[in-house]
């Protein structure tokens, strides 16, 4: 075997081929089912996520325990290709209200250091049922009517957005 061939396929081509096949299979499994790449489009998660940025959704995040407050989650719509990316601010059983742009949980204001600017949104208090979470984007400088937020069933949360 020539030096070029050895450089390209290694000393044992069969083993090299097997390694490539295994790596490809692992990549397909990991990035197809576990760490799903997703590109953020839109401005509702600014300044945390910019439109066009690439992130990964860990679909195994919530196998043991449910989402926690502050988690950024991917919410499935009709299928597997389009997600809402929002932050969890309300947990099951809590009362959630927005008063002049400040999220209140059970009557107490929520500290949100990730929110840069706020418009004075007002949303009437709701009580989350079991398996319901309240999600919202970080960009509160938008008009509320242009921003999708609200209650979501646990079953719709596909996973946690990581890096």
């Amino acid at each position, binding site marked *: 075997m020539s030096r070029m061939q050895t450089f390209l396929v290694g000393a044992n081509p069969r083993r090299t081929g097997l390694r490539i096949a295994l790596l490809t299979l692992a990549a397909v499994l990991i990035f197809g089912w576990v760490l799903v790449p997703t590109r953020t*489009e*839109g*401005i509702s998660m600014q300044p945390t996520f910019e*439109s066009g940025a690439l992130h990964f959704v860990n679909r195994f995040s919530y196998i043991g325990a449910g989402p926690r407050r502050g988690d950024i989650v991917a*919410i499935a*719509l*009709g*299928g*597997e*290709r*389009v997600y*809402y990316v*929002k932050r969890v601010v309300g947990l099951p059983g809590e009362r959630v209200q927005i008063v002049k742009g400040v999220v209140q949980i059970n009557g107490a204001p929520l500290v949100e250091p990730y929110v840069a600017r706020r418009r004075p949104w007002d949303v009437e208090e709701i009580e989350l049922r079991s398996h319901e979470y309240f*999600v919202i984007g970080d960009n509160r400088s938008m008009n509320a009517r*242009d921003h*999708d*937020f*609200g*209650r*979501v069933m646990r079953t*719709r949360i596909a996973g946690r957005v990581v890096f």
Partner: protein
Amino acid sequence: MSRALLLRVALAILAGAAAVYVWQQAFPSEERRIKRQLDAIEDAANSLSADLAGAAVAARLSMYFTEDVTIDPGGGIEPVRGRQTILALARTVESRGETRLALKDADVTLAPDGASAAVTATVTIARNVGSGKESLDARELALTMVKRESNWLISHVTAIDTLR
């Protein structure tokens, strides 16, 4: 396993895959036909404009719906009823390219009699808001489609509130 045998197995697999592909293209299932219909609706919706060509596209777009179609966008907005209303709305679209619609993740469930189908899909609408920026909206839709003379037409559309 000898190299010749491996090659034969690989060729057999490729030939089989090609045969399946050709069969699916020549004799598509009803689910595939419905998805192709949705692709055609997406293409037509993205080709609308205020000129004469756009009027023809609007007429073609309206024919993908039944005469008594109902489109319920939710959020307290009055439903749109009837094919003629859709045609009138489609004609009001002013220019091509400022709004881009995509139908994704279509999931089709045929009724047992094969005469209707329940379809869920996600529609994304990207709008050019100037300065090179785009606003993006996404909605989950539930559609009812019925088969009329071998064509699948939309009879009902409901927007589902994923976030309530």
